[in-house]
């Protein structure tokens, strides 16, 4: 059996972390949950990740800063930005910072799967 692709979810909302974890696992991925940007940056095995799903609005270090740091240190690791805020401004900031894609909450399983498929 082929090794499962590993996806990291970074979100300060424990219910969203848990829900996305369940959904992504049900699509056949392995899931790692992080409650903050700092926790992901402290994770030493980032090269093993297929991608990161990161919330934009988080206390302390926000998602935009996380995207910039990961893009700089691990340019091959795609980050998908997520936010529950409406509007294009945040999406543009995330893409400018280096996000590979963008999802507006709430998003359904098919939107998530299309996004992951685009990442390869």
């Amino acid at each position: 059996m082929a090794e499962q692709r590993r996806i990291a979810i970074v979100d300060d909302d424990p219910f969203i972390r848990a829900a996305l974890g369940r959904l992504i696992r049900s699509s056949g991925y392995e899931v790692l949950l992080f409650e903050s940007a700092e926790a992901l940056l402290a994770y030493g095995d980032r090269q093993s990740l297929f991608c990161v799903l990161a919330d934009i609005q988080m206390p302390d270090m926000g998602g935009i800063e996380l995207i910039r740091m990961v893009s700089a240190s691990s340019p091959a690791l795609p980050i998908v930005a997520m936010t529950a805020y409406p509007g294009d401004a945040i999406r543009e900031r995330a893409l400018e910072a280096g996000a590979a894609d963008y999802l507006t909450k709430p998003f359904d399983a098919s939107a998530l799967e299309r996004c992951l498929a685009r990442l390869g």
Partner: protein
Amino acid sequence: MGGSIWTLIGAAAMASAVLAVMSLLRRSQELRRGRQQVRAIFERAGISMWREDWTAAGKAVMALRKAGVTDLESHYANRPEDLRALKARVIVRDVNDFTVEETGAPGKEAYLGPLDRLLPETDQTFVQWLVAFGRGDRFFRSEAHVKTADGIEIDTLFTAMLPSDLDGFSDIVVTSVDITGYKRAQARLSAAETDAAKSSRITTANALSASIAHEVNSPLAAILANGQAAQRLIRRGTPDIEEVSAALDDVVSQASRARDVVARITSCFSNAPGAFAAVDLVTVARSANLIVEAELRGLGAVVHLAAPDDLPSAWADVVQVQQVFVNLLLNAAQAMAQGSDRRDITVSMRAEQSWLVVVVSDSGPGVRLDKRGQIFAPFHSNRPGGMGMGLAICRNCIDAHGGDIWVDDATEGGAAFHFTLPRPNG
């Protein structure tokens, strides 16, 4: 000797007669000079001066006073045609040279004749002259919007000494100052303030709606992801019941979270304390009219206010009630914008037991019976680009007072919006 006495007496009489005639001539010349001076002052004064015959208006006011009519404004608000007819019977008899020079009219004749030619349909000051007559005022000052001889509308400040008897109404001297430039500057300042306030409101509204969206979207995201995960887990050959159960628990908890967010938002807005006090609705209606004066004039609408002198106060929040009047006046004017020349809005008020009843009626197309239940709902608009919040806000404000708001047909066609407000201790 006797002959010479008579000759002397005759000569003295002659001399006296000559002196009397000379004195008369002198007085006549002085009078003529005086008239010429007055005429010269009238013609050359650096201010526009008009001589107007208001006899018909004076007679009409006196007849109404005699018939026991005390509230002339309400009387004419209910009889706009009578008011228009009266306006046509006020005659401009003369204007000074300065008026002709200032406005570039071809001659005085351009202004002479019935006053109604010079007052636009939207004029609201004529009735105030009648009210001043009725009160016995000796001085009148009013800003009015008038049409010059070449059809350009200008703002003017009229001032007049009013007569104490009917004879004096045949020749009232009115001075007029063109304040168009001042009014335009005032309007630009007001528009800039309105734009700044609107921009601030939009920024606040955007920030607020984004914040609400975030608070609601977050639990929805968890609900959607848990729900779809549970669907997948339960459809597997060997369902992971424990994980499905955990997902459904989270669905329930996140649905409750969303419900609480909505309840918090609702409570945040509905708990704003209203400043309730005894309020004179006529004053509030007038101030609302002033706020939207320019918009109403732009839409060609005329507001007539009818309320009895002894109208009791309402127990109300001034700001909210003013907003209701503003919305209903604009709504009425916009409803008539495509209609006929006559764009009358009548605001009438009356007391009924422990309530005050206000009716804002227009002469527009009215509201179809099947639409009357919907128009007070949020985001319902028949106007292109309209937000559809005006009447919804009215309903919220009136609900906050425990009153009622509804629409039916105006007596002479058009729509009539009714709302009720409680009286103090009502």
